[in-house]
Each structure stands twice: as structure tokens, then as C-alpha cells.
């Protein structure tokens, strides 16, 4: 294998370069559904497969970027704090609603995967699929899942929820902006929240709250709930 591909700068430059292009494409397309993370992953996969570069070579640089995931998750405390200040009064009903969604999500993902012939590994990797990607990756590592499968499931969940979330909620007769926003954020994290923001200001704000609380609740509950399902 070419030595240069094993140099950390290869993975860093490839990732940042494609990321900048992907963000530009999303900006031009003007839809939150063209997720730049998905575009970047797909383009890098194409480059590595075509050039026969192993993942280990790419990841010399990749892990340098992935290290920043840690402080970034800690940094989520800042938007979380700003939102908590606004919803203080309604915190308990919101917390319970998101917890209901969170536990439903874990149970249904694990249950469906196992029922349909999925392996234990797949079921575990799928269990945090509604949680925002940076937190979901950490949870997946902690519970013995495959973080990359989790990331793929999370992004797919976000795109589907962003595409169809509000319509699917109207299907069961729920019209409330508050409930719609909270449900979209809880089910489809940041990508869903981008769609909720276009539905309206209240939907967007509640979606952000749902996303943060579900990330937190799932991170704390899932490692202890999982043994009950498996």
C-alpha cells in the first residue's frame, strides 16, 4: 500500500476537504435532508474503495478528528442550558413525554430487530438510533454495539423523520405544535429539528428540547435497560 495514505494528514485533509464541499452543496440545495455528514461519508467511502485504501490508513487522521467528538458532546451543555432556562416551568411534563418516547424507542428498535432475525449485535447497535449522532456513538461504544452501524441508523432515522415526521404525527390526529415539535426532536434528533424549524418557531424550539433530553435520558437509561430486553 502507498505509504502516503498512512500519514495522518491524508485522512484529515480528505475529510475536511470533502466536508467543506458537502456543506456548500447543502447550502446551495437549501434542504436539510441532504445531510452533509451522509454526503461526506459516502464520498470518502467511494475514494477509499476505488483507491483500495484500507480503513486503518484513513483512520490515522480520522481518529484525530474523532477525538474532538468528546469536547463537542460536553459543549452540548451550552445549547441545553439555554433551552432549559426557557422551559423550566413545563420541565416535568416535557421530561416524562420524552422519557416515554425514549423507552419506546429502545424497546421497539431492539424488539423489531430481534423479531425480524437480526443478530444481538445489530439490535444493540440499533437501540440508540433516535439519539443525536455524537451521543449515540458514545452510547454504542459503551453497550458493545458497532458505532458505525449506529451512526448509519441514526442518520437514516433523522432523514426519514425529517422527511415524514410532521405528516406521520398528523396521521394519528395530533395537531398540537408543542407535541409535534417535541416528538420530532425525540424521534429524529438534529436532522428532524431542521425540518421542525421550518414548520414553525415553537415546533423548532420543542424539537431541540426533545433532542437534547432524549440524548441525555437514553445515555443514562440504555446501559441499564438493555439487559432487560436481551
Amino acid at each position, binding site marked *: 500500500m502507498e505509504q502516503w495514505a498512512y500519514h495522518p494528514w491524508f485522512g484529515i485533509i480528505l475529510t475536511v476537504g470533502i466536508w467543506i464541499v458537502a456543506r456548500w452543496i447543502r447550502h446551495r440545495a437549501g434542504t436539510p435532508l441532504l445531510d452533509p*455528514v451522509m454526503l461526506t461519508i459516502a464520498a470518502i467511502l467511494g475514494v477509499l474503495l476505488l483507491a483500495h485504501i484500507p*480503513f486503518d490508513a484513513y483512520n490515522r487522521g480520522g481518529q484525530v478528528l474523532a477525538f474532538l467528538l*468528546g*469536547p463537542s458532546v460536553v*459543549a452540548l451543555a451550552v445549547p441545553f442550558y439555554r433551552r432549559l432556562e426557557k422551559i423550566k416551568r413545563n420541565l416535568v411534563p416535557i421530561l416524562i413525554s420524552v422519557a416515554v418516547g425514549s423507552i419506546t424507542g429502545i424497546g421497539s428498535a431492539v424488539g423489531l430487530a430481534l423479531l*425480524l432475525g437480526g443478530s444481538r449485535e445489530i439490535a444493540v447497535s*440499533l437501540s440508540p438510533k433516535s439519539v443525536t449522532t455524537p451521543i449515540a456513538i*458514545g452510547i454504542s461504544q459503551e453497550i458493545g454495539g458497532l458505532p458505525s452501524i449506529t451512526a448509519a441508523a441514526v442518520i437514516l*432515522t433523522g432523514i426519514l423523520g425529517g422527511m415524514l415526521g410532521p405528516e406521520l404525527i398528523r396521521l*394519528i390526529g395530533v395537531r398540537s405544535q408543542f407535541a409535534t415539535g417535541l416528538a420530532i426532536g425525540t424521534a429524529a434528533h438534529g436532522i428532524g429539528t431542521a425540518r421542525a424549524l421550518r414548520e414553525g418557531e415553537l415546533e423548532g424550539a420543542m424539537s431541540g428540547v426533545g433532542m437534547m433530553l432524549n440524548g441525555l435520558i437514553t445515555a443514562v437509561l440504555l446501559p441499564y435497560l438493555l439487559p432487560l430486553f436481551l
Partner: protein
Amino acid sequence: MIRKETVVSFALLLLFLGVGNAISLGLHLRVPGNVIGMILLTVCLLTKVLDVKRVEPAADMLLSEIGLFFVPPGVAVMLYFDLIAKQWFPLLAGVVGSLLAVLWATALAARLFEKKEARES
């Protein structure tokens, strides 16, 4: 140009990350250390132990590009193409079915509370 405030706030984030990891490992918690760090920082902000302005510069900078940092863990999916080829159906059905379940369960629970509040007021 990187300002001093940005460097200090980045160091603070790393400090909370380190403490979170130490707690996760030391107490054998199965919660990721970065999430524990996030919870600790949120508590410090809510109780005004730490002013949000102290951590904002680096936090806003990292969060504006957070997607970049989970590209490499996502690219690792290439190691599991065989597994996905074999298990694509439970994976896909799990995502779609569970998405529906979460959307509906959360929306119904939230509406229940909304109606209760409307009756009481």
C-alpha cells in the same frame, strides 16, 4: 485569529471531559464519560457556578462543525459491509418501525399533558 477566551473555554471543556471520563471509569458507570461531562457542565451553568460566557467561544465553534467529527466513526461502516448485506432487513425495518413508535408515543404523551393542563387552568 484565535483569541485567549477561546483557548481558555476549550481547556474548560477538556477539563469537564476528563472529569466525566474519570467518574465513568472510577465508579464503573456505563454512561459515556463525555455525557457525564455534559451533565456536570449543565449543572455548573444552571447553578451559576460557571458563567456561560466562559465556555461559549469554544463550545459554539465546535458545535458549528460537530458533524465533521463523526464522519470518521461513520466511515468505519466499510468494515461491516458483509454484516449489513446479511442483516439489512432487520436494520431497515428496525429504523422505520421504531421511528414511527417514538414519534407517536412522544406526541400522544405530550398531548395528554397539554390537555390536562388546559383542563386545570
